[in-house]
């Protein structure tokens, strides 16, 4: 296990290095003068030169690259251009909120989707096609609804008509119950499409396992359907499910950008939208870097869990 983790971490470092390099050069490939683009119409002539020097853009490219690499290694992400606040501080403040939204979403999705998909698979295996079809088709239709649309729909019903949950507002950790209420709607919106995808994947995975020989063996030993489905089938079906959960966690971060914006939640997504709107390149660059890191980290965690569930996994 340890040597497996070591190998994975080695790969992770290589991947992150690639991401940093890519982000650095991608930003510099944007046509035009970054300094001018960042400053907009405010500066010209000598002031722009000064600004360029301040950003370190006058140095040769390789020097800039080396500087950038070193600063990333030191976790020095610099400051935003527009507000001059340290980017690290901004991200640290926004991060827990986004992670909490994403985490709750995933938890909710997993708790609903896996039992639902398992039940659908069980029904299909027993030839109860109508119930299975009802679940599968509902999941498919829900899956097709875009997040911004579900968000508006839920806002309309739950907040405006029923007045159950606040539609938007600031989030702070000082009042946990209020905070939970605030993020409830975004979590539900994000979870809806996650549930749909995950339930269908679970159904397929469990159904396949239920036709395996070892499930027949368990049944031939007199194991009840509960034991067969949950101990044998689901455990084996977890392998593809884990992969999908890992991948959809990444997709979820994409989803948070829109949903945080719609519900005005001050998370990483909102930070990104702000950065783009105000042409704050260092901010955008670092948020992208952060997203990339989360993707890589989640892949690593997925691999570790995978190895834990399936003893056959070898590297």
């Amino acid at each position, binding site marked *: 296990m340890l*040597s497996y983790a*070591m*190998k994975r971490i080695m790969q992770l470092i290589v991947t992150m290095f690639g991401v940093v390099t890519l982000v650095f050069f991608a930003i510099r490939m944007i046509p035009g003068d970054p300094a001018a683009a960042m400053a907009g119409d405010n500066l010209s002539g000598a002031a722009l030169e000064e600004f360029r020097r301040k950003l370190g853009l006058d140095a040769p490219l390789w020097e800039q690259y080396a500087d950038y690499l070193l600063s990333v290694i030191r976790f020095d992400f610099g400051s935003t251009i527009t507000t001059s606040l340290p980017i690290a501080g901004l991200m640290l403040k926004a991060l827990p909120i986004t992670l909490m939204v994403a985490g709750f979403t995933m938890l909710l999705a997993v708790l609903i989707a896996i039992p639902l998909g398992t039940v659908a698979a069980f029904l299909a*295996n*027993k*030839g109860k096609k109508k119930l299975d079809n009802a679940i599968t088709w509902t999941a498919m239709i829900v899956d097709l609804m875009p997040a911004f649309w579900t968000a508006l729909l839920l806002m309309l019903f739950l907040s405006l008509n029923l007045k159950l949950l606040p539609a938007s507002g600031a989030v702070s950790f000082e009042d946990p119950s209020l905070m939970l209420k605030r993020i409830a709607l975004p979590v539900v919106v994000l979870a809806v499409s996650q549930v749909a995808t995950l339930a269908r994947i679970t159904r397929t995975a469990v159904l396949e396992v239920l*036709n*395996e*020989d*070892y499930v*027949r*063996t*368990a*049944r*031939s*030993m*007199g*194991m*009840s*359907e509960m*034991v067969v489905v949950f*101990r*044998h089938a689901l*455990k*084996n079906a977890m*392998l593809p499910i884990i992969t999908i959960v890992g991948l959809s966690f990444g997709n979820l971060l994409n989803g948070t950008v829109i949903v945080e914006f719609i519900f005005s939640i001050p998370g990483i997504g909102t930070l990104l939208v702000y950065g783009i709107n105000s042409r704050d390149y260092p901010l955008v660059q670092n948020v992208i870097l952060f997203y990339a890191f989360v993707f890589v980290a989640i892949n690593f965690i997925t691999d570790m869990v995978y190895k834990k*569930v*399936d*003893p*056959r996994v070898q*590297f």
Partner: protein
Amino acid sequence: MENGATAGTINRPAGKQASLTQPLLQVQDLHTHFFTESGTVKAVNGVSFELQRGERLAVVGESGSGKSAMAMSLIQLIAYPGKLVSGSIRLDGKELVGLGEPELNKLRGSAIGTVFQDPMSSLDPVMRVEDQMIQPIRMHLKLGQKEARKHAVDLLTRVGIPDADNRISAYPFEMSGGMRQRVMIAMALSCRPKLILADEPTTALDVTIQAQIVELLKTMTETTGSAMMFITHDLGLVARFAQKVAVMYAGKIVESGTVGEIFSSPKHPYTQSLLKTIPSVSGEKRRRLLQIQGLPPDMKLHITGCSYKERCPAASERCYTDAPELMPREGGQSAACWLKNGLMTEGYESITTLLSQGEKPEAKEGWNRIPLNGSVSEQPDSPGDDNVVLRITDLHKHFKKASLLPWKKGAEIRAVGGISLKLQRGETMGIVGESGCGKSTTARMLLGLDEPTSGRIEINGSIQIVFQDPYSSFNPKMKISDIIAEPLHVRKIGTKEERLRRVRELIKKVGLDLSYLSRYPSQLSGGQRQRVGVARALALDPSIVVADEPTSALDVSVRAQIINLLCDLKEEMGLSFVFISHDLSTVRYISDTIAVMYLGEIVEYGPAEEIFVHPAHPYTKALLAAVPVPDPMIEGERTIEQLRGELPSPANPPAGCAFSSRCPHVTAKCTERKPPLRGYLERREVACHAVS
């Protein structure tokens, strides 16, 4: 064995003693149907039989005859869309049909244990053996965790798993196929069943392991007093193992009786023919294998009259209108045939002899060679050239597995460790050995699919292959004509018309109708597909055809057809074959010379008949002894010297002679020095210190 009392012997309450005279299992008019979208498949269509306590019953039949569906019906584990429609199953007098799932679950695994065919897939891969074993034991025997574990360890020891106390914590993937099947058997026995269902329990195993497992099942049923229903298509196993036999055809039992009766005087034409279709490892070599014509009926259609009538040479008008029931004959035997003695009825004897000629291809008009431009198959016909078409010199193949971590050393597996062979024109060489002996790697190197590590392969002409599994070796989206023409297409040989002519010629050659050319592989039966496989191999007019287990995925009656076809082609076209198989009886039937391989090396080589009649190497002897002979008389008299243990890992072969770890005659010399392949008698070679 001390733990025998706790682990296996039956300690049933004395109250049940009164019922000891009645049969253990009574099945009456059982019907199991599969309601598929394209129609109802009547897989089990009125089966009745009885099984006595402690008795071993073999159920024999081709695939699709309903034998597995019947066994699964007994524990009512029929996969959707299958359903037990009607009938009665009484175990110890208790009716099982109509019981609810909870009651059935109390019987499954406790009163009835089951062993399945494929040990590789029948154990949960992500669960330790102990977790899989202990839970049923706790449930059925009401034992605590500790006692249950002890019971499981005892059982594993009894089925021959060394160091069971530790091995019980292993995952299935850490065990070999034979070991896994032992675990399966231990599981089936774990709750002291009265009845064990074994569905082809040794089919997926090597012969030497098969022999071990069969012996194990035999002793286990004898010591525990469990009865056993044993499903198989291998008549040799039946002769070795069973006391009673039931032959199934098209969802019905067509003949039943004691093993002696069935083998010495079969009464049903199907049984009679079946016994003639199998090549034998011992006794006289039959000239040509009998083959049963046609295919089993489509079970979706209603069958009027006898289900075997289309394939039966003795079918009369009555057979087309009236279905014969299972009727008692002499002794305990019964058969479902209007004729008292089936094909052996007076006036019909000649039919079997007629049949045994088979459908020798009528096309005797010779083999037209199309002038192929740019062909690779133009053989130097100069008479001065000797007749050797294939020469292998000191062939090696080592697989290296490098480790990703720089400080770890990679492993090296010697799949083929230096073999030398020669094949004459028109000669068939059989390569036999257990899985992992390197025979398939050798085939891959012959075809250039693998690069040899060292050594030389010289081929005079070209070489083609017939694959093992006709179900997966064709592109399902291609028509048969395109499949056969593909090699010509790839080599850009001939015009479109020429290719088509060639394909037509080839398909006739392999005994198929021209109408098959426009079909897809899924529309053909296994035997027909394998014929297409042969046709494809012949498309480029090769001088050598490598046949890698070409019959192992086929049913017995179809197997005979393919073997006959290959023999005919060999005679007519002067083809040379390299025939790779673990099925020794088939190899013997088809081969002129035989190479026995063990751990990547040839241990014995020589003319097939000599080797089969007088094997010299201890491994060859053990292999031949392990193959069951389809004759209960011979099987009854044989004392089988079983091979201990399993094939050692090719990554870590024993020092000295590779076979030393399993050899019954091993001496100190064997573990020190490797015996070279030396000449023996006139035309043979053997690698053994004890043989000279």
